[in-house]
């Protein structure tokens, strides 16, 4: 029994060290990509972009999953984006009379003569409303039909050649569209979409620090490094611009934005044509940081379900999908198993103390170093410094993160693997 337990634990430790080294290498790659992007990013010439007739119009579409005041506030922010020619198209999925009254009151909505027709499958349109205020806002009221059909209805109703999408957890600056559009203009044949996301300022509180560390690691790897391999995965805090014709060619949304984006990658790779999804970390779009443990749990679970979506998307490279399974599923599973086995084995006398220490080093120790590396890498990737106090707080938050929260997070990562969600 002792030999078996020792062999199993040794194998797990080797796997954990190897996967940790791979994560570290990916974060280094992400840092290099971010540094290159920071060096290349041109100065802002917003006024020229605002006035030019050559800049294509953008339809920002949104299908709020709840019709609360927060969603209305988001739409108000979207309407207020600075851009020469943009409209906001909101698809309300089966709103109640009370919801509709609240939206109508807030935006002074009135019946519109606009018709929604297009080639994408969409939900049954109840009515189309437009704001009487001097803002370009169209609200498509649908019978209950789900997120994908609502988004398709918004695309069908959109008048512009470029579609903008802002995730529900995206904090953005009013100039976000002006900072995103140059990527599409630089090479409109090759760049099929632009995705922007960056870490937000970390609010006070230990859970916010944990969330910031978690996002930082994911940002350096799944956004920055993957963008270097043209496999960028948007998060729910991303802002995306995409040419409308690519949405139409791909047959529209089937589950949500993430599923569509991954399918777009798969289609583009299958077509063998040169394509690129541009990553814009400095576009002023940031992932909102959770502030409580419950919010953090929701965020980790959503993120993991998004990863599951990527793993099950056919057409993406096998190494990419295998890597996600190894790092995001197998590692937390084996790590949790190793804790239990090492603790029980040490208590029963099957596991020697050095091996138990090795397990701790491969889990807690490596986790701390990866988080600390992420904080340092982010700083080195940018061309300006951060507040030293804030930096030190985040750096040392890696210690408590790996002494309790990491183990809890492993359990969270294992729980929702069977589900696939979208935003």
């Amino acid at each position, binding site marked *: 029994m002792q030999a078996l337990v020792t062999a199993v634990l040794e194998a797990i430790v080797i796997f954990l060290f190897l996967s940790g080294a791979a994560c570290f290498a990916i974060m280094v790659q992400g840092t290099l990509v971010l540094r290159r992007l920071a060096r290349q990013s041109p*100065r802002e010439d917003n006024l020229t972009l605002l006035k*030019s007739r050559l800049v294509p119009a953008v339809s920002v579409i949104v299908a709020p999953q709840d019709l609360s005041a927060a969603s209305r506030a988001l739409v108000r922010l979207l309407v207020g984006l600075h851009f020469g020619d943009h409209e906001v198209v909101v698809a309300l999925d089966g709103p109640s009379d009370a919801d509709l009254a609240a939206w109508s009151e807030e935006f002074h909505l009135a019946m519109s003569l606009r018709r929604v*027709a297009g080639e994408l499958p969409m939900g049954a349109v109840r009515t189309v409303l437009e704001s009487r205020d001097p803002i370009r806002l169209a609200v498509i009221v649908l019978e209950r039909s789900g997120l994908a059909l609502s988004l398709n209805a918004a695309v069908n109703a959109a008048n512009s050649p470029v579609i903008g999408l802002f995730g529900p957890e995206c904090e953005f600056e009013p100039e976000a569209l002006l900072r995103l559009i140059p990527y599409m203009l630089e090479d409109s044949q090759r760049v099929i979409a632009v995705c922007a996301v960056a870490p937000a300022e970390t609010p006070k509180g230990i859970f916010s620090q944990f969330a910031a560390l978690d996002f930082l690691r994911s940002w350096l790897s799944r956004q920055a490094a993957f963008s270097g391999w043209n496999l960028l995965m948007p998060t729910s805090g991303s802002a995306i611009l995409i040419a409308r014709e690519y949405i139409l060619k791909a047959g529209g949304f089937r589950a949500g934005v993430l599923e569509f984006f991954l399918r777009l990658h798969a289609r583009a790779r299958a077509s063998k044509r040169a394509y690129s999804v541009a990553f814009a970390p400095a576009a002023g779009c940031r992932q909102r940081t959770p502030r409580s443990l419950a919010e953090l749990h929701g965020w980790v679970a959503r993120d993991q379900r998004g990863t599951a979506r990527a793993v099950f998307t056919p057409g993406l490279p096998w190494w990419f999908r295998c890597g996600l399974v190894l790092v995001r599923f197998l590692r937390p599973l084996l790590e949790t198993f190793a804790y239990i086995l090492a603790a029980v084995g040490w208590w029963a006398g099957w596991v020697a103390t050095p091996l138990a220490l090795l397990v701790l080093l491969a889990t807690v120790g490596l986790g701390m170093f990866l988080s*600390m*590396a992420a904080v340092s890498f982010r700083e*080195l990737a940018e061309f300006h*410094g951060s507040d030293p106090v804030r930096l030190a707080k985040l750096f040392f938050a890696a210690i408590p993160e790996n002494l309790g929260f990491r183990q809890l997070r492993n359990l969270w990562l294992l729980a929702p693997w069977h589900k696939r969600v979208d935003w």
Partner: protein
Amino acid sequence: MTEAALRVAILLMGAYALVITGLFAAALFRGWRWKRKTRLTVKLLPEIRAALVDYLAGSDDLTQLRRFLKISRRDVLNAILSFQDSVAGTARDRLCALTLDLDLLEKWRRAFHSRDLARRRAATAGIAFVCAYEPCRREVGEVLLADALEDPDPEVRVRVAQALAQFGSPAEIEKVFRMAIRSNLVTRVSVAGPLRAHALELSRGVVTEALQSDNAPQILGALEMVVAWERAVPLVRLDQMMQHRERAIRLLALRAVPLVASSRENDSAVMQLLVDQDHEIAMAAAAVAGRLHIVAAVPLLARCFRAGNAALARTAAAALAAMPPQGWKALEELAASENPMVRSAAAEALAHVRAAKGT
């Protein structure tokens, strides 16, 4: 065996910890320096601006500015450049001359060839600004500016192109135009504004030359510049562009038609495109027909309703609505159609017309 592995792991992790700690210390130090610099800028910038304003108002005392230059060179440069959009005429010349007096121009010239992109960009920004002043231009040298138009960095190219478009000779302006039509759309957007003042001269020369070439990307670039200028230009044979084999060129030529003098050939080309199988082109043609009030296109616009495309029908309806009374009469007939899409598009346009008329 396990103990040996533990020792190796501890050794490796120790080395790793040292590297991470070193990186963190570097980041911390940089953060501290950045904070100090930011504080200094906040304190210094208003004083530098005040000194610059004094200088622009006629004071010849450069002692203060030289002192600031020693404390924070970057802030002085930023302060000078921040004035570029707010000064003109002699004040601008004086500001440019200041860069000569403070030896800034010579340093920019040296940094212009730097391999460090950030340095090169900063130097370009400065040189592009002082190009407005002839003595500075002489000092910089025309060769340097012409070479910069071929720089691998688009940001450098755009900066120099903007400066040359504003203050360059006719030959340099032509060179800027040629560079713009070879570059990407962002460059054209950035350069179109400064080149707009020379639209007439360029249209008679290089634009026509580019349009008559066989090079499709160049034709596209030239048409994009014309569309971006948004001003009347003397272009001939635009109808040929509307019949070009490249779809993108046909579309852009349609957008450029309202900017050139009306001609029978252009009207006829627009009408031909109204029946194009490509709905986007037909829509663009319908929009142009409405904008130019091509009354002869009314029957073809009415035919657009039968294409079975809702967006095209709506655009054609809007075009008909812009052409009273023939267009309105056609809309009234279409509003009685049995086809719900045709009826709805025509009724929508008529409702807009009536709402605008207040009936």
